[in-house]
């Protein structure tokens, strides 16, 4: 005859194992869901070829209301539109880290870059790039200026840049900076000096 105290102890142990098992299953499902959600935020891009380069990127720093040149190691293809996308994503990577010098909304990314007539770039961003962008003249201008100046530095021959959001034209980035116009990179280069 097994003593009653041992029966109760064994029963409690079995119950504990069962509860722990259920909790583990729940945690696993939660992680899977998070992974899936994260992958939906970002566009699927083909693997990038090219050799690793140390490129100059212009980064916005909200605290100082300034733009500063930084260096980043990036695999840079030779084809200009792919090169532009990699350079732009290197800038966004700075903004999406935590802590960020210039926070952008989660999921802000470059969907695609189209090169037209060898001198015009149309940059298609994810909806989160605009929807999650903090609103304010300075913050919006700093974002666009840092992206265009980074292109100026790393993709020669680009004279005009246009931003679209999820394939569509949008009036402003987040209520202020103009997204309807084609930006002349030379004119933006002059404006960028004010922030540096």
């Amino acid at each position, binding site marked *: 005859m097994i003593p009653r105290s041992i029966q109760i102890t064994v029963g409690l142990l079995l119950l504990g194992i069962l509860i722990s098992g259920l909790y583990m299953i729940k945690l696993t499902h939660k992680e899977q869901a998070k992974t899936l959600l994260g992958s939906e935020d970002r566009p699927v891009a083909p693997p990038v070829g090219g050799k690793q380069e140390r490129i100059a990127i212009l980064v916005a720093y*909200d*605290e100082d*209301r300034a733009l500063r040149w930084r260096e980043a190691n990036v695999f840079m293809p030779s084809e200009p539109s792919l090169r532009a996308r990699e350079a732009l994503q290197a800038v966004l990577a700075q903004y999406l880290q935590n802590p960020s010098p210039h926070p952008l909304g989660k999921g802000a990314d470059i969907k695609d870059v189209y090169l037209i007539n060898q001198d015009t770039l149309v940059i298609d961003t994810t909806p989160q790039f605009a929807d999650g962008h*903090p*609103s*304010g*003249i*300075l*913050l919006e*201008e700093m974002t666009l200026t840092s992206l265009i100046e980074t292109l100026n530095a790393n993709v020669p021959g680009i*004279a*005009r840049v246009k931003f679209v959001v999820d394939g569509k034209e949008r*009036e*402003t980035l987040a*209520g*202020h*900076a*103009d997204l*309807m*116009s*084609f*930006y*002349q990179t030379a*004119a*933006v280069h*002059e*404006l960028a000096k*004010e922030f540096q």
Partner: protein
Amino acid sequence: MLAPLALLLAVLSLADNEKQLTVYTPQTSYTIPVNDREGQLYLSIMDLVGPLGHATMRVDGHDWKLQFNSADARFSEGKDKAKIRGNSVDLNGKALVVDNRLLIPVKSSFAVLSALLKKNVEFRPEARRILIDNAALHFTAELKKGDKSSLLLSFNQPVHPVTTQNENSVKLIFKREPLVSEITSQPFDDKFIHSLSFSEDNGTASLVIAGGPDLNATVSGDGKSVTIQSAPAIATATPSPVPSPESASTGSTASQSTQPGIGPQTHPSFLVLIDPSHGGNDQGALLPEKLLEKDITLAMARRLKTELEDHGISARLVRDGDVNLSLEQRAEMANGLHAGIYIAIHAGLPGSGVRIYSPAITSATEPVGKFHPWESAQSSYMSRSQALAQAVAEEVGKKQINVVSFKTSLRPLNNITAPAIAVELAPDPANVADLSSQKFQTNVAAGIASGVAHARAQLEAQR
């Protein structure tokens, strides 16, 4: 000796007879040239629709594909039909290509605009005037009899007529206002004022008041009233007799309005248009302490209006409530009112006081004919905008407020045809309460108003 004079007179005569068509919308108006081609009058389609929205033309062989806002249209050289929004539209004549420009018959303007805009379009073919979206200006006439009878013309909007005086009549020419009237002639049983007649021709409307000798016209009541009376001229009621960009840009206007008998009050007043940015569904920046940018901009704009008026400067708000207004509408209002200065108010973080922005044209769009692209309409006013920004920054700085100046590609500044700046309240994040503080706002508003007052003389000298 007489040959050059005759040639000059001939040229002037030709210039006077230049045929034109005027388009009026509730926000603005513009005049475009029309030319005789193959026995009828033609105009450029881009001249016609360019100022009404975002228009681009692509040529594909003999086909000319117009993209106007969200509408598509296709015209074919030599064909008298066009495809607009998928529907066939009769052009009343062949589409022509001259100097790389697509011309369509003037008669087809009504059909083309109706199909493209999907708005109410009224075409007055004999007068070559097109009124879009019920853009009509009406008036009433009231004769006040007495020792010196006077005729009071009251308009439902401010008017800036060009006035010419003849021996026994005064003529008011309305080049920009969509003046309409069902009555062409109104006789009066009076020995000083005999009749009033309305006519419209070649894209303009005119009122002729016939009567005794030395009739003159004076504008009063914020530009909504014109009084016709025998000399001497009655005292002006217009607060600031300063010419607007409109009159400054047309030499003939300025010279005619200074003719004997026409008082200086016929000049339009100098108006500062204050734009409290955002509004309605557009809340602008979400600021700490649940402050909304749209509310702060409105409060600040009201204070600035008061300060400007205290300096004797007429001011008007783009919105005086929580309403939706597109950037296009804001620019159209500024351009339509021929504002002397446009100031957009913003609020945002982070900062350390106030930021003043003057426009920078970063757009790569090229001019179309004599029209500046909408994206760079500001280009002729850039130096004046910078002078204004500098004057405002200096005066705000004198109020012990930290000021930073930038150039920016900010809408709608680049669409404004007047000196234009944006002022952003941007206090230190530790002093967010300043954004809604009456003391801070009043202090900034006083600085801006002082800057405008200082810049005004300089801006006028540059006109």
